[in-house]
């Protein structure tokens, strides 16, 4: 391994600009004559719009335009769409309700955009926005997914507020397995609603060039090409080739910046209308009521086991809240990203899952770090832990008895696991967490009136998203391959254009590590270009821990072509047969001789084209590839959480966190560990602190960072992180992906630890001090079955 190659903890290229304040986020970009957009949003969760009076606002200082949904419709700007078709059990397609960028006639959630003011400055826009008079007729609202079907109708085309009633698996076989079971564990689970809260708020800056009829959008997006495609092809804003989307530095995404939102549509439309650039940057309060939220499931789950603790079957019924409109990929999250992972790391013969997706008067819900997989893992790992306790079997032992041990393994829920060693990660985690010494620590804690608990989460996820044909057959509207272009300059330095997008993941570093190692050139001589539809031909962006497994595989494929072409050039230079050229450590050698050409010389010769006939061999050294994966990848591991609970206050302290993950090949262990840390923090946040709460009128009462409890430094411990490795067989580098693991594994580990400590399963997330204290008051001593 070289100092900057694959496996090295190379310090990041991107850091210099961030630590010196020179990052260029969307709100840092400035355009001449730019104006500001200020949105007027519904204060009601559900209301008819009886009238909008913009006359006073239009006369306010600095106001350039005041626009509403009527004008948007008049200009034939199309609705936002959900791009993944799900069919109900009865074969009917999902009920996708119209989602205009500005509401027409009715608002469906608090924060729904009703009008926009375009003004010279933001404060002038705000002043004018206050003068817009909207006559609302409030309607009853429903926010609880469990009550959605009997709630007030939200969209005409969706009776009982039902989007789809979907199922996966063989219900009859599952019923039969349950009938023969010795033991059945049943749980009711709420997977709490979360607000992603990337620290950079969403922003958009749109500019129209009337001379070329070209629109440009700077946007906080995780996938600029998909954004352009949807805005061009579905919203109908402009032809695709007349729209450029630039995602400059993006300050965190966690899923929430995958989607196409009303604000960028309105900024583009308004920029063309007023003939000046239009900028919008959310304030945090706006983010809370407009960024797609995550999770929000209500589930009943059952696990059937035989007398030896062997799992026979699982039955799951989930109601998923998709909010007021179907966000871009919302339909796939509680279906193909959720039910397909219900087998966990276990050999479970039969699984049946039903999912009802419903509309409510809440902010749309879509993918948030892990997206469906954290919800699945929570169901599986709570069921297994509780079953072990009820049967009097050690929870680690029950897991071991049921682990998948041979590969490939076909689960009853679509996925075919291709590689893993679940015993290895469990063993290593047990060791690192000193589980053997736990009872001693528990006794010691008891002497200080503290309760200690230990919780496991042996999770699995499906990443490397995704084989295009496979997702296409499941309803996905796009292919999920990735592209790469490798441009070798005449001086031998290299630019790699990738369709993935980094918003904290460090691709400028890790992708350069790959190229540096493969071509034997200095790490410094490689630049990674991403996030601009004018530079990168096409790409699917970054989410689902796909950039390494899919994006870097595309780079490998392009590098293969570069090497092949460079060998041809070298053969002409060295007057040898192409088949005799060996490329190693940045040098082309004629096999069995001391004749060689350096990388830089070959690059130069490819461009000056003096040593070969341009008619036989094209000059230049640039190659493109599109890589479509052959399977998902399956990162997996074991997280162990140890908590100490203050009996008097109910406050939970995480005293020890051990994570052992199998991500396949690790390109940069420093970056991978950072991803694990961040994921765990979000998972702990979900388990202990975070929860979006709506009141009965549909007001988001956790609508600011004062009310929504984000994890702070003092809420979290330092983490003990270890790795095991089985290579992913489906991609050339053996990468599985690491971005979501922590968020997927952590909630179950925390709740398993807390319920172990308090001796009761009766706790929901977030397990705040108050909730734990109340559970302690009402706890009945647990009895083994």
């Amino acid at each position: 391994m070289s100092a900057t190659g694959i496996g090295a903890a190379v310090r990041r290229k991107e850091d210099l600009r961030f630590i010196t304040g020179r990052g260029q986020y969307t709100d840092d970009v400035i355009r001449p004559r730019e104006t500001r957009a200020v949105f007027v949003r519904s204060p009601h969760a559900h209301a008819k719009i009886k009238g909008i009076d913009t006359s006073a606002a239009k006369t306010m200082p600095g106001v350039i335009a005041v626009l509403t949904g009527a004008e948007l419709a008049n200009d034939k700007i199309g609705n936002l769409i959900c791009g993944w078709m799900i069919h109900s059990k009865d074969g009917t397609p999902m009920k996708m309700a119209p989602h205009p960028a500005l509401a027409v006639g009715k608002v469906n959630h608090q924060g729904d955009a009703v009008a926009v003011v375009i003004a010279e400055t933001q404060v002038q826009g705000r002043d004018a926005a206050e003068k817009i008079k909207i006559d609302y007729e409030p309607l009853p609202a429903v926010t609880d997914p469990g009550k959605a079907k009997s709630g007030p109708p939200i969209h005409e085309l969706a009776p009982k507020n039902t989007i789809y009633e979907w199922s996966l698996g063989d219900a009859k076989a599952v019923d039969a397995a349950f009938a023969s079971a010795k033991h059945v564990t049943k749980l009711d689970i709420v997977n709490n609603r979360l607000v992603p809260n990337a620290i950079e708020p969403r922003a958009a800056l749109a500019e129209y060039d009337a001379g070329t009829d070209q629109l440009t959008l700077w946007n906080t997006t995780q996938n600029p090409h998909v954004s352009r495609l949807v805005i061009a092809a579905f919203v109908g804003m402009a032809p695709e080739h007349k729209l450029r989307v630039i995602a400059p530095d993006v300050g965190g995404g966690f899923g929430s910046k995958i989607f196409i939102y009303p604000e960028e549509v309105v900024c583009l439309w308004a920029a063309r209308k007023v003939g000046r650039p239009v900028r919008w940057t959310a304030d945090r309060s706006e983010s809370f009521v407009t960024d797609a939220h995550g999770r929000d499931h209500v589930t009943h789950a059952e696990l059937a086991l035989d007398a030896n603790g062997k799992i026979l079957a699982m039955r799951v019924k989930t109601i998923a809240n998709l909010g007021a409109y179907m966000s871009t990929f919302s339909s796939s999250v509680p279906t193909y990203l959720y039910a397909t992972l219900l087998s966990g790391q276990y050999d479970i013969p039969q699984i049946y899952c039903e999912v009802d997706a419903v509309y409510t008067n809440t902010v749309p819900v879509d993918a948030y770090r892990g997206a469906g997989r954290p919800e699945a893992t929570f169901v599986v790992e709570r069921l297994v832990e509780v079953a072990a306790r009820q049967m009097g079997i050690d929870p680690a032992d029950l897991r071991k008895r049921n682990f998948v041990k041979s590969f490939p393994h076909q689960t009853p829920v679509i996925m075919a696991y291709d590689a893993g060693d679940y015993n290895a990660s469990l063993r290593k985690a047990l060791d690192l967490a000193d589980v053997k010494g736990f009872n001693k620590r528990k006794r010691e804690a008891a002497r200080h009136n503290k309760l200690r608990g230990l919780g496991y989460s042996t999770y699995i996820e499906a990443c490397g998203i995704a084989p295009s044909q496979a997702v296409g057959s499941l309803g996905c509207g796009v292919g999920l391959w990735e592209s790469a272009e490798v441009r070798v300059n005449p001086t031998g330095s290299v630019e790699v254009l990738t369709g993935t997008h980094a918003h904290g993941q460090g691709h400028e570093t890790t992708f350069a590590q790959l190229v540096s190692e493969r071509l034997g050139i200095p790490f410094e001589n490689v630049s990674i270009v991403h996030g601009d539809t004018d530079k990168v031909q096409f790409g699917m962006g970054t989410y689902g821990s796909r950039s390494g497994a899919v994006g870097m595989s595309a780079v490998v494929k392009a590098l293969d072509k570069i090497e092949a072409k460079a060998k041809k050039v070298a053969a002409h230079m060295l007057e040898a047969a192409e088949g005799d050229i060996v490329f190693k450590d940045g040098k082309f050698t004629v096999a069995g001789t001391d004749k060689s050409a350096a990388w830089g010389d070959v690059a130069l010769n490819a461009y000056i084209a003096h040593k070969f006939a341009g008619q036989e061999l094209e000059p230049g050294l640039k190659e493109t590839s599109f890589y479509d994966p052959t399977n998902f990848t399956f990162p997996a591991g074991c997280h162990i959480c140890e908590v100490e609970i203050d009996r008097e206050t109910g406050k939970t302290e995480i005293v020890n966190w051990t994570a052992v993950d199998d991500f396949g090949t690790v390109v940069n262990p420093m970056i991978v560990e950072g991803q694990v840390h961040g994921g765990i923090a979000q998972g702990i946040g979900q388990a202990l602190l975070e929860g979006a709460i709506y009141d009965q009128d549909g007001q988001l009462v956790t609508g600011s960072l004062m009310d929504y409890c984000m994890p702070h430094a003092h809420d979290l411990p330092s983490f003990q992180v270890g790795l095991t490795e089985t290579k992913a067989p489906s991609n050339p580098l053996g990468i599985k992906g690491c971005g979501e693991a922590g968020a997927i594994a952590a909630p179950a580990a925390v709740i398993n630890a807390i319920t172990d400590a308090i001796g009761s399963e009766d706790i929901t997330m977030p397990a705040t001090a108050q909730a734990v204290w109340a559970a302690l008051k009402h706890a009945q001593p647990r009895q083994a079955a």
Partner: protein
Amino acid sequence: MASVSMTVNGKAVAGDVEARTLLVQFLRENLRLTGTHVGCDTSQCGACVVHIDGIAVKSCTTLALQCEGAKVTTIEGLAEPNGPLHPMQEAFREHHGLQCGFCTPGMIMAALDIVRRHGNELDERTIREQLDGNICRCTGYHNIVKAIAAGAKAMAKGGARQAAE
């Protein structure tokens, strides 16, 4: 409009602002110093932390006019454009104390204030508690804590410049 003048990163600056203009707006929009960020509207996230007369302050909750005559230091003022990095900046890079980078300027400015108040030998608990005013969504704080401890030590070593110079 009212005129305001102050020293920002060692340079005298002046501008005409509305009374309600926040310091962060003055820095970002008037001076185009965009390293100072806005991540919330309730003074929780700390992405906007700068130093006013050597003390860490949230520039999203400070009016520009309050800073008349003050010495303001932003992230851009910690190191010369082509000079060596401040040890705290270097420590964040060395210990991978940042991912998306958005909270980072505020984190570094807050870290320097922790050093000012608690010295160069910082234990984990102190750092975690003192970071209460700064939120990071990417790192889980693990490496930020390591970076601040190392940065504080490095500041003592090389006779490095102190935070509140």
